[in-house]
């Protein structure tokens, strides 16, 4: 009998599901993956239950690709469970890596989110006239119903459990997934704790012409049709390529659209948004505080959305400030 195939698990927490699609986007190579691995848990594609995982011996899964941030008690439980059962836990995609779009909800607390969704939201009104909220426990005639607890703050995977590798991107590009999986199969992985990818920024892969930077006006993408040859940032578009880890092949700039930063920062950078703001404020072409203020106000109406689109939950800021008396009540 040949040597047992390595065991692979995939899981989906707080994310849009694009990462799952991205795995399939490796196309026919998925067959190689399926052939190389024994897929033991993948709720989207394979019928297996949580209790099956619970029964597995600790450390018996060789690789777990975990996408999504941690928003609920159920996701937290699954993260802990899969951590225990897996030799290598990979934060797969931007949500698990940095919180991504779901992490932007950290600008609000649970109460505000629930208000939006269950009270003011057009999706639930007028179907929710009694203003019901999801509760962890609800008594019904048949007994007690359980729902996961919805946390106040979205956490990244490594804010919840220890993570061995990170595969960046929203979603990770098919070729990078394949390369990472191949590396796992061949045992050619970088040191634990690494982000699998390059340690330079998108500019490195971007063929546009670059000059010394001086920016007089920022534009939003719909305001101008940028020249296809020169650096988008120099044309006043908020291109995050200067701060974003390379590896995508500068996909967005290649189609005349600024990089939005989904790969996150380079090694050693603690706060992507702070880096972007520090860099851009350094090249605004004015000495006059009022003019500088105007350039920023007019050109960057949404600084959090522009600079922390993917990384708010992983940033030094993490979330909107919470008054001290609110903390204990809503953390869990």
């Amino acid at each position, binding site marked *: 009998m040949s040597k047992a195939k390595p065991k692979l698990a995939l899981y989906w927490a707080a994310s849009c599901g694009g990462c799952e699609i991205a795995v399939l986007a490796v196309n026919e190579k998925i067959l190689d993956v399926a052939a190389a691995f024994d897929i033991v848990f993948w709720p989207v594609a394979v019928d297996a239950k949580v209790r099956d995982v619970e029964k597995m011996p600790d450390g018996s899964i060789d690789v777990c690709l975990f996408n999504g941030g941690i928003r609920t008690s159920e996701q937290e439980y699954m993260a802990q469970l899969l951590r225990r059962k897996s030799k290598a836990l990979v934060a797969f995609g931007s949500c698990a*890596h*940095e919180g991504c779009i779901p992490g932007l909800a950290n600008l609000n607390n649970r109460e505000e989110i629930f208000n939006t969704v269950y009270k003011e939201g057009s999706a639930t009104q007028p179907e929710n006239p009694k203003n019901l909220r999801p509760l962890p426990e609800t008594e019904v005639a048949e007994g007690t119903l359980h729902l996961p607890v919805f946390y106040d703050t979205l956490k990244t995977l*490594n804010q919840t459990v*220890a*993570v061995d590798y*990170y595969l960046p991107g929203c979603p990770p590009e098919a070729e990078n997934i394949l390369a990472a999986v191949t590396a796992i199969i061949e045992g050619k992985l970088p040191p634990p*704790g*690494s*982000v699998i990818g390059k*340690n*330079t*920024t*998108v*500019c*490195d892969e971007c063929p546009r012409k*670059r*000059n*010394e*930077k*001086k920016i007089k006006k920022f534009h939003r993408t719909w305001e101008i049709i940028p020249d296809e040859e020169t650096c988008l*940032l120099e044309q006043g578009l908020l291109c995050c*390529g*200067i*701060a974003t880890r*390379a590896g995508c092949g500068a996909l967005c700039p290649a189609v005349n659209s600024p990089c939005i930063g989904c790969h*996150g*920062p*380079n*090694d*050693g*950078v*603690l706060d992507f948004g702070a*880096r*972007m703001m*520090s*860099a851009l404020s*350094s*090249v605004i072409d004015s000495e006059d505080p009022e003019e500088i203020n105007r350039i920023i106000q007019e050109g960057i109406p949404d600084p959090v959305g522009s600079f922390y689109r993917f990384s708010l939950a*992983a940033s030094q800021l993490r979330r909107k400030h919470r008054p001290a008396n609110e903390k204990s009540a809503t953390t869990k």
Partner: protein
Amino acid sequence: MAERVGIYVCHCGSNIAGMVDVEEVAKWAGVAIPDVVVARDYKFMCSSLGQQMIEEDIKKEKLTRVVVAACSPHLHEKTFRRACQNAGLNPFLCQMTNLREHCSWVSTDRLAATAKAKALVYAAAERVKRQQPLEPMPVKVNPTTLVVGGGIAGIQATLELADAGYKVYLVERSPSIGGHMAQFDKTFPTLDCSACILTPKMSEVGQHENVTLLTYSELEEVSGSVGNFQVKIRKKARHVDYDKCTGCGICIEKCPRKVIDHEFEAGLGYRKAIYTPFPQAVPRIPVIDTESCIWFTRGKCQACSKLCPTQAIDYDQQDETIEIEVGNIIVSTGWNLFDCTKLPQYGYGRLANVYTNMEFERLCNAAGPTNGKILMRDGKTEPDSVAIIHCVGSRDSRHNEGCSAVCCMAALKFGHLVLEKTKAKVYSFYIDMRPNQKAYEEFYQRLLEEGMIFVRGKVAEVTDAARQPSEEGKLIVQAEDTLLGKQQRYPVDMVILMGAMEPQADAKELGLKCGISCSMAGWYTERHPKLDPVATMTDGLFVAGVCQGPKDIPASVAQGAAAAARVMGMITKGTVMIEPIVASIDEEECSGCRICNNLCPFNAIEYDEEKGVSRVVTALCKGCGTCVAACPAGAITGAHFNNQQIMAEIRGALWDAAPEAKEEPAAV
């Protein structure tokens, strides 16, 4: 291997120990902070015994890192780094934390101060563990010096250096060197003729083979660093060819345009549109005041050009910017007179016979507009009585809080000159008499004997509104004689306002160009107020004279000479060690986005077009960190200030507030 850290907490006499429980801090540090193998407190860590203690510990305890919790690194970082080096430890593995200025001196609560001291020590310990050994770089010192400002302080500095055989560039903004001293008649307390002692020095500068004199020139830009500064100087267009002009003065004589001389004659006299500020000006080359010149304003005349025997007049001359390289810079840019119209109650500008001190200097100068006769504004009448008002715009929280240091003595000098030259009564209205240098008190006594009348009180008002017949046609000085405790009115003919010394209007701007900071009052800040009075925080930059703070001529001269001595020290040594705290770019991580290219204030970043990366030129880098902060890729590291070190320092400072954050954050 874990580092072995030594912690040294200084009492600084009672400076720190008076507010911080230093014994407790040391005892606690030995237990609470990881990797600390020895923690001690000592009365004066900077003493030779204190240093010796550190050196012995390094050897005996095999310390690999040292934290000294004492005063400001500005004062003693060098001391402790040297101590570490003596014991074989790289000096950059020693970290100071400031328990004095940052803690004890600014606290009133002993418990809180002690807690803060612990946080500072913890922060320093966490930081120092991550510091790396660095080696200073030797740089050759260019033996040429730049002196900015040609008043007496600058002249003295220039001559000291030039006489010692070193080349000096002396830059002066006005057409001649000499400064304020050239305007004075006599100097206190010896009553030497100011011009007689100054002009020989001026001509010596003008003729010295080692001096390049750049008058009517402004300092535009300074780059580089100690030992190797590059300086751009703008020579303003004189419209007179420096090489052709012989200084014969025919042009000045023949120029038909007379204008009021607001600079040298303080508005009391006239000069021509082509002029030298005064007859003994150095250089003797005149300049054309294009705002007054008939040719420049109306396109006619050209008298000077027609009559110049050497065809030296050049109406088309343009400003010229030259670049020079020097090793050290002495800034001696002097002062400005307080605008006495800011105190309307004294009537300056409104009441004709109210004078400023600079006006009076010209009035009693033998070469001045009245040939030294003390006359009122009508140009004929001698005053019968003169009031001198002290502290006009100085010692006044609305204008200049500080004392101008020279006015008491100048007022005594004025009193003497009035008594000598006229039959007038002289009143001095003073707050305090401060004749506090050699032979100054004696001069004060002399004036008391000569009959100058001293009234101790701040003048409320100078007015021409008479209340009784004896006041008609007089200026009435209203003041409280605080020794009598009585409001008095003193009718006089002439009032002299002892206006304050103020920093030059553009002192801050020049300071920014060179890298010298200003005090709140606007005077340049010396490296140490007692022990390093002519050096500044920027190596290779020195200050001398009044630009550093109000002082009299002897003190200015002493500072000029002191600054020159410091520069000679640098030149003789030949090399300086440059701190190795510089930025570097990891070429692997740099994607050549070029964000940093424009930012470096020292032009130390270059872009390699071929490789598509930016690079730091180490010799030019001053380690300011601008590019480090701006690099979006995190590809630039500032040695001694890397992320790891700074974050560790922050975590250490928060040791009790956020103990969970003690660990290094996981990657990303």
